[in-house]
C-alpha cells in the first residue's frame, strides 16, 4: 500500500519542480526580451537613430501584418502585435520618465525616511515632528500633494537653470519632489516597524561597550532593521511605480499620460491601456524580482526569516 503513495508524492514533487523551472525560464526570457528591447529603444532614440529613425519601430507594423496574413488563424494576433509595435516607441519615452521618477523618488525618499524612522523610535521631541510629517503625508492624497506642489507652490517655475531641460517638461520636477516627500513618509513607516523589531538588548549591549546612542543605532540597530524592512519597502516601491501615473494630472508626460494622449487621438482606449498595463506589469515584476534578490543576498543565517526568532 505504501509504495504507490511514495511514488505519487515523488512524481508530484518532480512535476512541481519542472513547472517551476519552466515558469522561471519563461519569466527570465520575457525579462530579457522586454529589457533588451527597451534598452535598444532608448539607445536608438537618444543617439539620434542608431538602427532605425528616431521614434520609428524596429520592425514596421505593415511587415508584421503581412506576416500574419500568411498564417491562417493567427492574423488577429499579428494585427494586435502590429498595433502595439506602432505605439511602443512613443510609450517607451513615457516609460523612461516613469522609471526615473520612481527610482529617484524612492532613492531620495529613503534618505529622508531613515532619520524620520529613527526619530520616531528613539527621538524625544523629534518623535512628534516625525509623527506629524508622516501622518500629514500619509493622510492626504498624493494627487492633492502634487497639485499643491505644481499649481499652488509652482515648484516647476523655480527649477534652477542647470537643471532646466533635464526633463522634457519641468512639471516632472514637481512630481519628483512630491514622490520623494510622499514616499519618505511611507518608507519611514516600514522602517520604523522594522527597527522596533530589533531586540532592544542589543542596543543595551552596544551602549555597554561604550558606543554612543547614535553609533549604537547606526552600527547595531539599523543594519538589522533595514534588512527586516526590505519586504515592506518592496511594497512601497511597487506602489510608487503605479502611483507615479498621477503625475499625468500635472502634465508630466510619463507612461500613463503618453498612453492617454495617444488613445484620445486614435480612440482605441482598450488596446492602448492594455499595452500600458503590460508595461507597468513588467516594471513591477522586475522590481519585485530585484528586491527578492537583494533580500537573499543580504540575509543573515539565523536572523529574521531564518531559525533565529
Amino acid at each position: 500500500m505504501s509504495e504507490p503513495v511514495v511514488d505519487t508524492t515523488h512524481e508530484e514533487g518532480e512535476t512541481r519542480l519542472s513547472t517551476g523551472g519552466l515558469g522561471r525560464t519563461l519569466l527570465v526570457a520575457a525579462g530579457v526580451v522586454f529589457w533588451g528591447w527597451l534598452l535598444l529603444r532608448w539607445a536608438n532614440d537618444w543617439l539620434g537613430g542608431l538602427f532605425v529613425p528616431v521614434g520609428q519601430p524596429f520592425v514596421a507594423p505593415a511587415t508584421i501584418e503581412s506576416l500574419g496574413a500568411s498564417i491562417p488563424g493567427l492574423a488577429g494576433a499579428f494585427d494586435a502585435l502590429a498595433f502595439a509595435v506602432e505605439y511602443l516607441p512613443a510609450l517607451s519615452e513615457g516609460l523612461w520618465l516613469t522609471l526615473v521618477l520612481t527610482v529617484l523618488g524612492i532613492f531620495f525618499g529613503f534618505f529622508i525616511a531613515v532619520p524620520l524612522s529613527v526619530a520616531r523610535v528613539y527621538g524625544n521631541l523629534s518623535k512628534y515632528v516625525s509623527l506629524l510629517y508622516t501622518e500629514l503625508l500619509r493622510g492626504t492624497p498624493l494627487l492633492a500633494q502634487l497639485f499643491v506642489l505644481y499649481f499652488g507652490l509652482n515648484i516647476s517655475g523655480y527649477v534652477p537653470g542647470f537643471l532646466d531641460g533635464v526633463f522634457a517638461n519641468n512639471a516632472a520636477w514637481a512630481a519628483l519632489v512630491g514622490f520623494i516627500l510622499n514616499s519618505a513618509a511611507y518608507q519611514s513607516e516600514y522602517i520604523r516597524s522594522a527597527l522596533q523589531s530589533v531586540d532592544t538588548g542589543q542596543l543595551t549591549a552596544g551602549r555597554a561597550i561604550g558606543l554612543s546612542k547614535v553609533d549604537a543605532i547606526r552600527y547595531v540597530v539599523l543594519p538589522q532593521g533595514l534588512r527586516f524592512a526590505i519586504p515592506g519597502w518592496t511594497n512601497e516601491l511597487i506602489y510608487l511605480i503605479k502611483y507615479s501615473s498621477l503625475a499625468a494630472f500635472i502634465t508630466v508626460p510619463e507612461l500613463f499620460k503618453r498612453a492617454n494622449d495617444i488613445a484620445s487621438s486614435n480612440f482605441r482606449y482598450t488596446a492602448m491601456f492594455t499595452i500600458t498595463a503590460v508595461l507597468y506589469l513588467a516594471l513591477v515584476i522586475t522590481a519585485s524580482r530585484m528586491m527578492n534578490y537583494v533580500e537573499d543576498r543580504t540575509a543573515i543565517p539565523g536572523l529574521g526569516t531564518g531559525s533565529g526568532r
Partner: protein
Amino acid sequence: MSDNEHTYLLEVDRVSQSYGTEKVLRDISFEMDRGDVTVLVGPSGSGKSTMLRCVNRLTEIDSGNIYLDGERITGPDVDVNELRKEVGMVFQDFNLFAHLTARQNIMLGPRRVLGLDKEEAGKRADEHLEMVGLTPQADSYPGELSGGQQQRVGIARALAMEPKLMLFDEPTSALDPELIGEVLEVMRDLADRGMTMLVVTHEMSFAREVASEMLFLDGGKIVERGPPEQLFDRPEEDRTASFLRRITEMHS
C-alpha cells in the same frame, strides 16, 4: 580627579537607587581589590542586576558614590562612554549583535569605540576568540552558535575592550545545563588570570571555588558579606542560611 583616599579598584559607597517610588537599592557599600571575584547572590527582585547596571551607568543612582580605580564615576560630569570602555558587561541573554559574525561582534567595540583599524581590531578579536576556545567559529553568526558558544563570544566581546572590571549578570541562567560548564570554565580561567569580576550567579559551586567574597542581597540591602566559606558553612544571618540552602538544592 584621582583621589588617594580611594585605593580600591571598585568602591561602592552608600549607594541608593529607586525606580519611581520603588526603592531598589538601599545604602549599599562594598569594595573590591584588583583581582577580586565578588559574587552577588539574592532572591529575584532583590536588586542584583540593578547594582551591576549602576556600575556602568546603564542605570543612574539616586545618592551615594561609586569609584573605579580611584576616580569617581558617578555625577553628571562623567563621560559614560569613557567609563564603559573600562567596564565590561556580560548579559544573561548574551545580546550578541545578530547581523555580525562572532569575530565581527568582538571587533565592533575596538574599532568604533577605541578607534583601532580593521587589522588591529581583527587581531585582537582572534586573540580573544582563541582565549574562549572559539577560533573555528570565528565566521559563524550568532544564530548558528549554541547558547554556550554565544555566551563565550559575549565574554570575548567584553574582554576585547581590555576592561579593568568585568560585570556578569547571570551569565549561565539562560543555558541548557550541559552548556553551563564551558562558560564557567572560561570565567574560572579569567579569574585565574587576575581579572577583577563582579558576578551575579546561582552557580554555587562556582561561587564557593572562585569567589574571594560573597554578598547576599535581599530587599535592596546587603544582609551579609564575607568569604564563601563563611556564608555557606557558618552564616551569621538566618536569611542567608535559608536562601543558600534553597539555591543549592535547586541547582544540584
